[in-house]
């Protein structure tokens, strides 16, 4: 049971789960706070991968590629919120259809800029190779993804729990009107949260590049998986998005090995079961499913 293969699949699943987490956490926060299903999230993940790759090839610095992905996501996320989301606030169906349209446009735009084929994203020298633990081979890059994901997880957790802005965001998830009545400019909080969520997805894309390669379909594949992770974990719950993402990542890794092609079916069955037994998700608060 606990042989080399098991640890390889475990590490693979955790790495994949961390990438899903980087998309899902922003998606969940944005939906929880603003009630917007942001379909462009997967597209920003994809754009992050392309932008990160271009920066890396131009500067030969992986750190700059990561920072570039982060900054790109933050600026674009903020712009999208101000231009495309804020004017339609309160009309959920219109926003849903709008982000769906933006997703289509972004997924085509990337083909115009970088072409429709798979691009290779080389790893930096210091992340090539593997760590040997007895018989177990642990590739550095996968460990790096897991480590990076953990660092982001801790930072976002501390931000949401220890800073004034983070606490405001969590309060907004519970009750935006109440936050506003305390004299806080909730619209600015919305813009910031949207930009933060998008930048997490985009930096996730940048670090996923050397692991998954870079191609346009990663947008659509990942948004579907991330939505499933968010629904399973519980919309609006940060802990839920962590649990949901890691669960889905591990299911994909183990299921994909023992029953290839059926991995997606596992995800879907898991989501259907969760929605039937506990519609608010594993970690969600009760009473959120009505009328939304």
């Amino acid at each position, binding site marked *: 049971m606990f042989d080399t293969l098991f640890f390889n699949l475990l590490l693979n699943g955790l790495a994949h789960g961390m990438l899903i987490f980087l998309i899902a956490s922003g998606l969940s926060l944005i939906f929880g706070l603003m009630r917007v299903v942001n379909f462009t999230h997967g597209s920003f993940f994809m754009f992050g991968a392309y932008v990160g790759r271009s920066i890396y090839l131009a500067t030969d610095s992986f750190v700059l590629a990561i920072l570039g992905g982060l900054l790109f996501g933050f600026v674009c996320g903020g712009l999208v919120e101000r231009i495309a989301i804020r004017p339609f606030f309160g009309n959920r169906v219109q926003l849903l259809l709008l982000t769906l*349209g933006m997703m*289509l446009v972004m997924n085509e735009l990337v083909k115009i800029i970088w072409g429709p084929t798979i691009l290779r994203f080389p790893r930096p020298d210091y992340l090539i190779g593997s760590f040997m633990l007895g018989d177990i081979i642990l590739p550095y890059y996968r460990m790096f993804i897991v480590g990076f994901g953990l660092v982001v997880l801790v930072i976002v957790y501390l931000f949401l729990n220890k800073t004034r802005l983070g606490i405001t965001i969590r309060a907004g998830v519970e009750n935006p009107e109440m936050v506003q009545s305390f004299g806080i400019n909730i619209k600015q909080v919305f813009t910031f949260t949207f930009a933060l969520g998008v930048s997490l997805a985009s930096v996730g894309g940048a670090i996923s590049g050397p692991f998954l390669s870079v191609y346009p379909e990663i947008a659509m594949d990942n948004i579907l998986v991330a*939505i*499933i992770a968010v629904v399973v974990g519980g919309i609006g719950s940060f802990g839920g998005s962590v649990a949901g993402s890691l669960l889905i990542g591990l299911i994909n890794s183990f299921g994909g090995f023992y029953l290839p092609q059926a991995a997606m079916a596992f995800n*879907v069955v898991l989501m*259907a079961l969760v929605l*039937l037994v506990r519609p608010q998700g594993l970690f969600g608060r009760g009473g959120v499913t009505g009328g939304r």
Partner: protein
Amino acid sequence: MDAKKILQFLQSNIWIIILVGGMILYPFVSYHPYWLSLLITIFIFAAFALSYDLLLGFTGLISFGHALFFGLGAYSIAIFSRFTELSFGSMFILLAVAATVIALIKTAFAMRVRGIYFAMITLALAQFFWVLVMTLSRYTGGEDGMPRVPRPDFLGDRLTYYFFALGFLLLVYFISRRFINSPTGRVLIGIRENEERMVMLGYNVFKYKLFSLTLAGIIGSFSGAIYVMFINIAFPALLNIQSTIDVLMMTIVGGVGTLHGPIFGAALVRLLSHFLSSHFRQWIIIFGIIYILIVVFMPLGIFGGIPGLSKWLEKRGGWLKWIAQKLKP
């Protein structure tokens, strides 16, 4: 029925009669196989979009998995005709039963989760069937699909199929119109507007949602079946998310919550994608921009915007007022 009533019926349906008349006459005026094929697919997708509008526009259920029904129809015909000796009539009966069963499952979900959660679960259900089709390649051909789907002998040539598809669309249109204007349809619109109120008034919401989903499911799966008999191949893309996005766009562009909107939207989307795809490789981006503009500036779609347009024209007065009166339903 006396002459006066007939005259009244003709007068109130004048646009439909002109349009249908034109469509009937068209193949005799210019018989071009290519345009005929394009029109056939428009008729089929119009019926499919109409079935989607029954859910989105008239019941208020956002489904992201409507392609499931379309794919169900397509693959049922393909699989039945390859592995069984069933007649086409019994295939369609079995298909209707299967669509009803799936509608029942979806209704069970719709009673537990609402809004965006329902959208997600329908999306997941459709993706599940997509995975199933990809995985069970011994029966479904996997990624390559199932070629050589037969057609009934009496629908063999293109011209007959043209009238068959047109007839199917007309049937779907009149059934939907009758359904929407029936007391049941009124209750559905009530559910769309305020579900809690309908529960309070004592309506069995489950029953009405089941009606709506079953009708939409049967129409959707029949359109898939008629489409696959025309193009002669069933392939997985018919039931994945892209197919749902297509039908969603047709409905939104044409006008959600109207009966003419989806038909008009299907025609517009098919024609536009036909013209754009022959000129630009990345035509979807232009399409996406047009779609975004419609969502932003005409949220009710082209047909849904007509009452607003006629009001605006009426204020201008003069001959514009005359147009405004003509536009009124």
